Structures are given as C-alpha cells and as structure tokens.
C-alpha cells in the first residue's frame, strides 16, 4: 500500500519536439486535496491526461495507486477507482442527463445512488434534457455528478468549477471537502482560481514549463514562505548579500521587499544588520507564491 495516490517521476512528454513536461515529479498523498496550479500551457492538462492513460509519456514513470498508467489498457482496472472531470466538459450529445447516468452506472460497481440522487437535486439537473441543451455550468455539474457518484477513491478534476456561478462554485467546493472528510478519498484538481485552491486544498503543486517548481503541504508552504520588508534609512542602502532562500528582491524607494521561500530568519537577521534599517515580516498568500514563480520563470 503506497502513501501516495499519485506519483510521477521525471515525467517527460513532447508534442512535435515541443516539450510539455520536462521531468515532472509529482507526489499526491492519499486522502489529500491537492491543488494543481500553473499558467496556461504549463503542463497541467498534459499531466492529467497522462495519469488517465490518454497520453503516453516519452520517458519517466507515472503511478496511480501504485499501478503504472503508462499503458492505457493495463490501467483500465485503476480507472474503476478514479472519477474524472475533463477540461472541456464534453459529453455525448445524443444522450439525455438520465441516459448518461444510466450509461455510466454499470461500469462502476461502487456507484453511489445516494450521491447520484443528492447531486441531481442539489444541482437541479433536468433528467430529460439533452446534453447539448445544457449550459456549460450545468454540464460541469453533470460531469461532477458522474465523477463523484462513481464511488471513486480518487477524483481527478480538470478545472472542475469552470463555468459555474459563484453560488454553485461554493456548493461544489463545500461538497468536495465534505466527501473527502467523510469518505477519505483523494482529490487532485487543477484550477486557475487561486482563491478556490487556497480555500479547500491541503496540498498544492505549482507547475511551470513542465516542471514542478513548488510542491508541498499548503500550511507548510505558508509557514515557510514569508515576505520581509526592509525600510532603509536612505534610498541607497549598502550592498547586501542576501542568504539562501531570498527568492525575489525588489526595491521601490526606500523599501526593499524580499520573498523568502525558506530561511526567513536568516534574511531578517541579515536585514537587521543594515544600519538604520527597519525590518518587518509578513505572511504570504498562495497567490503571491504563485505569481512570484510565474514571473520568475
């Protein structure tokens, strides 16, 4: 029994010589809610498709529940334990809501009829309506229902709240937290909405240009990452060699702003050694961490 629901090691994937993943190392602890962040084209969807066996990695390995997913057919059994929401939320256009639920149900022996009923009511999905007649938000809700009711141990959700209004987003996020708490399932979701990720995720990973640049427990990251403001006595301070961990240093007038990825105490100590300088430290938000990495790369 592995401690990780998802593990990738040095995962590489290129499309026509254009690298999408460049040695991605990903570790998603079992039972966690893992927010997978990155800019457009950073490699999020490629990673998700590789985990689902829709794409084949060029090199490296990818395991879900300890089973290699590099071969689509061998991973068929693992997919019984996975609920999946695709990025574009497309379903069969010739089926109604009721038909697609009836179609999906028999593939999953652990199908949860109670959850099916609950989400049909909660999301107000019209059973008789054809899928093309649903709005994008409704399709997102239907896909979530189809993913969650599978009775899966792992939910892989690619932009799950895309197209949802704020109230529905709130409901969905609350439900995701609730089912993780009650069933102990793992949720791996990508999103551009940093506030959502910060709200529900306990682990995050930031991918950029196909590499994992930040990964870990969100509380640890927030404890580790700190912003240090140094107010200098005059505009020109003495040249300072900042210790390791000072990720980004910006100066505006007399204020030097330093984002520390770790070792904040040493940075503060160094700042305090500048004659006449006033030093303050602040906690950082996930958005700040994300933007810092997005900008620096």
């Amino acid at each position, binding site marked *: 029994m592995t401690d990780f629901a998802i593990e990738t090691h040095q995962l590489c994937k290129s499309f026509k010589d254009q690298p999408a993943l460049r040695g991605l190392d990903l570790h998603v602890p079992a039972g966690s809610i893992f927010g997978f962040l990155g800019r457009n084209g950073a490699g999020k969807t490629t990673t998700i498709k590789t985990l689902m066996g829709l794409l084949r990695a060029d090199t490296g390995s990818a395991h879900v529940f300890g089973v290699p997913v590099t071969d689509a057919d061998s991973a068929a059994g693992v997919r019984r334990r996975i609920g999946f929401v695709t990025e574009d939320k497309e379903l*069969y256009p010739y089926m109604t809501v009721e038909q697609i639920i009836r179609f999906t149900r028999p*593939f999953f022996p652990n199908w949860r009829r109670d959850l099916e009923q609950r989400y049909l009511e909660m999301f107000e999905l019209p059973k008789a309506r054809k899928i093309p007649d649903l709005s994008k938000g409704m399709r997102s809700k239907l896909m979530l229902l189809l993913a969650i009711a599978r009775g899966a141990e792992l939910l892989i959700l690619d932009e799950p709240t895309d197209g949802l209004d704020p109230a529905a987003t709130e409901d969905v996020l609350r439900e995701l937290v609730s089912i993780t708490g009650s069933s102990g399932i793992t949720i791996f979701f990508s999103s551009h909405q940093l506030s959502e990720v910060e709200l529900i995720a306990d682990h995050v990973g930031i991918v950029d240009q196909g590499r994992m640049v930040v990964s870990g427990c969100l509380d640890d990251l927030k404890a580790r990452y700190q912003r240090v403001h140094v107010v200098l006595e005059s505009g020109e301070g003495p040249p300072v060699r900042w210790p390791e961990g000072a990720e980004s240093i910006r100066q505006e007038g007399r204020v030097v702003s330093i984002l520390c990825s770790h070792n904040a105490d040493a940075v503060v100590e160094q700042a305090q050694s500048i004659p006449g300088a006033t030093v303050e430290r602040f906690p950082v938000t996930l958005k700040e961490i994300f933007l810092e990495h997005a900008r620096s790369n």
Partner: protein
Amino acid sequence: MLWLKGWLETRFRLLFMLIFTAPLLFVMHSAGAHATASSVSGRVAGLVSHVIPFFIVFTCAFLAGAGIATQTSFQASKGLHGSALFTLSMPVRRLRLLAVRAGIGWLETSAVIGVLCCEMWLEIPMQRAGVTPIEMFEQAATLIACSSAIYFLSVLLGTMLDDQWRVRGTVLASVGIWVLCTQPSLPAFADIAHGVGERSPIVAHTIPWNVMAFSLGLSAILFFVALKIAQRREY
C-alpha cells in the same frame, strides 16, 4: 452498456440507410416489371453488378464508427474529441470499445443488406420465379461477407481520420479496390468487387466461398490493425 452508446450513435444512420433502399426498390421494381423472360437475367445481373456494390460501399461508410471517438447521430462531423475523453475515462479496454462499436455497425450493415435482399426477392417477380429463397439467403450471406472488407477498412480509417475524411477515404479506397479487381492478374479469390456483383449466387448460381473467405480474413486483419492504432493513439 456500450451497446446503448453505439445504438444511439447509429440508429438514425440505420434508419436512413433502410429508407435509402426505397429508391433501389423502385429501380428493381421497374427492372422486374419491364423485363421479358429473355432479358430478365441480364437486367438483374446489371442491377446486381452496378447498383448494389455502390449501395454497399455507401452503407459501410455510413455505418462504420469513428473508432473510439464519438459520432453524431446523423451527420458526419469533425469528431467529438472531448466526449472521447469521457469514454476513455471508463474502466474499459480500448479493444472492447472498438469491438462493440464496430460490431454494432457491422450488424446494422448486415441488416440493411438482408432487407435489400428480401426486397429484391419480393419486388422482382420474374426473379422470384427463378431464384429460390435459399439462393437469396446465400446471396445475402455472400454480400455480407464480401462487404465486410470494405466495412472494416472504414473502421480502420475511423481510427485515424475525422469522420468526414473517413467517409471520403472509404469511397476512394473502394474505387481503388474496384479498379484493382478489373486487373486480369488479380487472383480470383481476391476479386471482392465481383464477389458482390457478377460472381454472386443469384447471378453466377454458385457461392464464391474463396472470395468470402478472403474478404473475412482481410476484415480480421484490418480490424487488428485498427485495434493497434486505437491502442497506440493519444487523445
């Protein structure tokens, strides 16, 4: 439940092909009504040789699936790529996905051919006098076996091409096969085009077993190649 998906994708296509047999029915009826005893065999041979092969190619192209990708229920589309991802998230091997979809289309193609043969027997009175129901059944079996190669060629193309290009590709490849079958150097057992035409039971009064066996063997190879492509393909 994959059969349900396949059926919902193909039901209107099947209905269209069954309706499309009506114009053929009219042609057959005219051929039968105006035929004299001396000319009837020639007219039937002409009908069988020229109209039916065209109809079969069209049926195969229309009912063969788009590989693992989703088809719309009627018109050829540029492939519903997104919903294929949903299909592939199911705990089902690609072999089963492809086999069920191809199997449903093949059964429906066989049904259309069966209906066509029944209509031929019912609508051409003079032919009815000269052809027994058993010979008509043999004719249907021959047409189904010989058309399988075209059908599975379309299945193979469906694993590589969009639906629109698959249909065009099937028609073009069928024309190529037709031209190939006119070459005298081609072995008789490989002459699929004439197996559904001049060498079919109601014209030649013999069952072209070797052509049928060749066509079914070729179908198996084409399906195997289609499967390998579907297994290798990325979505």
